[in-house]
């Protein structure tokens, strides 16, 4: 088989096309993933919400707060578990002006706006603005905090569902 063999050429061109297609697909996938932060707030029923959620840190503290902001020790993170029996557990729960409760747990309640969907109750008289953002690939839970650089609850704390 010499280097001018037409069969080899076909194989080479096919591999090149497949590689390029794969690259474009990856790019599109990434854009979709980034766009999740631009999507509208959704509420989920318990079946869709069940899972383990982990804090989504930022690369740059100035853009979004990072582990340091929450004084998390190395290897620690903010975790939320939503179980099929409606029990939710935050290992570290931050609310309002960065108040913190460790091991905050309870049962989800019905969402008044969409009764078939769940709502995580926050301590009484606190700001409990929350919701989910979804894409084809990911699910995020978020709620709002009033903190340095993000007064008046401008900061959305994101927790990403990993399983």
């Amino acid at each position, binding site marked *: 088989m010499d280097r001018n063999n037409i069969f080899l050429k076909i194989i080479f061109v096919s591999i090149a096309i497949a590689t390029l297609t794969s690259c474009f697909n990856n790019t599109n996938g990434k854009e979709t993933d980034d766009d999740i932060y*631009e999507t*509208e*707030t959704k509420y989920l029923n318990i079946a869709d919400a069940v899972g383990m959620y982990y804090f989504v840190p930022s690369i740059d503290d100035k853009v979004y707060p990072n582990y340091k902001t929450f004084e998390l020790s190395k290897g620690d993170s903010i975790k939320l578990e939503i179980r099929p029996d409606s029990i939710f557990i935050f290992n570290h729960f931050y609310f309002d002006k960065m108040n913190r409760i460790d091991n905050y747990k309870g049962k989800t309640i019905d*969402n*008044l*706006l969409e*009764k078939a969907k769940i*709502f995580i109750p926050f301590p009484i008289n606190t*700001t*409990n*603005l929350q*919701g989910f953002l979804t894409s084809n690939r990911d699910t995020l839970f978020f709620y*709002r905090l*009033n903190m*340095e*650089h993000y*007064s*008046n*609850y*401008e900061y*959305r704390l994101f927790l990403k569902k990993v399983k």
Partner: protein
Amino acid sequence: MNSDSLFVQEYTDSKLMLKYISKAPETNNSEQNSSKIKTDSFWSWLGEVFAGIGSFFNNLAYFMGLPIAMNTNWYSNACYNQGGTGGYGCHNNYDWLKSALGSMGDAFVSDGGGGFSYGDYSGEEFDPYKLYLPGPNDPSTLYPPFSSIIINDPTHGPYININPVNGSYEAQELIAILNLSRFDGKLVFYLQDHNNVSLQMRNYLSAYGETQENKDFIKWSVGYLADNSAASSYLTDHPEDFELFVMNDIDLNEPDDIAMATNAADIITDILVNRQNGTLNNLDVSWPSANDIKSKITSAISKGVYTTAKYARNYLYLPLQKVSLKYPSTINYSNKVIDAVRIDAVTPLVNFNANTMSWGDLFNTWLFELAPGHFSNNTINFTLASNVVNGYSISNPATNAVMNFPKGNNAQGGNLLNIQYQLQQGLGVGQNAIQGYFRYDVNAFYSTLSDANLGIQMLGSFPINATVISKSGNTAVVQFQIINDLGWESGTRFIKGTNGNQGIIDNKPVGTGLHLGGTITNTFTWTETIFF
């Protein structure tokens, strides 16, 4: 010597002429032996030389440090020294000067003599760097554009100092970038004489761009330094501190802005000079520039919150913050200025009654940190009895009354409260509704840039809570509450720039750092009857 005459004899020396016109000293040598050559062909040749030099420097040459276009006609017509024959009526030279100086050329011959004359130069050595003017009249009357740079020599008459050294490369660059003209002679001389400050200014333009705004600021600052010997002297020793004098967003078309910036620069100078001399205590005794700024802030307040915010931020907070950060020992003196403004100028103008105060009163209470002593915990509680909530006696109540604010929005990251729907869905007495969130994003910013939306600009983004007080049939009484922090993030929203909102300053607690803009908390609570 006849002081009524203009002594320009040295201009006929091509060597000096080259000095005046070119910025390449090394070219002088090539002209060393040509000063006494009188032939037209020489001048024609020299004109070509100059034209070549001018072309080399992008068709720019410098006369008195001013960029001028090369024009070979000037040189082919240039006067030459006829040498001791009494024939000093060198009109070609006059034409050359007139070309170079434009209308100023007329002033040179306004000695009533009917034309240009050399006078009776008789061999006395004059400083070749002094351009003598016709006298003996008051030079400032004869030459108003140059009044500030004319030096009156009682022996030889008034003159302008012509420094053949055009200053550093950066100074010359600045002169060209700022497009300084002959009427800016004072600025030109300052740059030529202060190479180290010129370097800082040139670096500033390199770092932040040669925008018209930045160039205008540099031009203003050169003028300020040329007029202010204390500041100039300080920066000559500490050129790196030029950054402390940088004030962004000065509207140089507004005399009030210029006056405010000048006043602020005076205060900075006072602080820096006294810090350097170890005499800051002197400012406890007398500080005129600190007194001056009080009346300016009072005037700003009368113009509304936009002007007040702009002045306080641009000319007080930001510049003094820079000084305080670089020289922490000076912060007490920065606060001394600010406290004088707060207590003497602003406090008497503010209504501290939460029921009757306007948005402007609330704004000034925040900006000038007046909450302590009037409101506990730096928190102001507004109810339905408050004008800013119910809209009574405030401008544009339909949009400026809190109870008429949108109860959340559907902007990205916002959330509409939709209380009717929640009541329909069974929201009961004593229950809290799902909160709304008004997201003050770019769209909200541009749609609220008017006096009709002072309140919503002051709040910015805010969550809004709703609790059902009573419910009967399809009617409910609902209590709404907004808890909102008012800090620099909110305050800077009031400064309208060409590109929209100005830079955000980090929030800070009341009483810390500079005593301006510490965060206060406002709660707005009211009830409405809702039909659902």
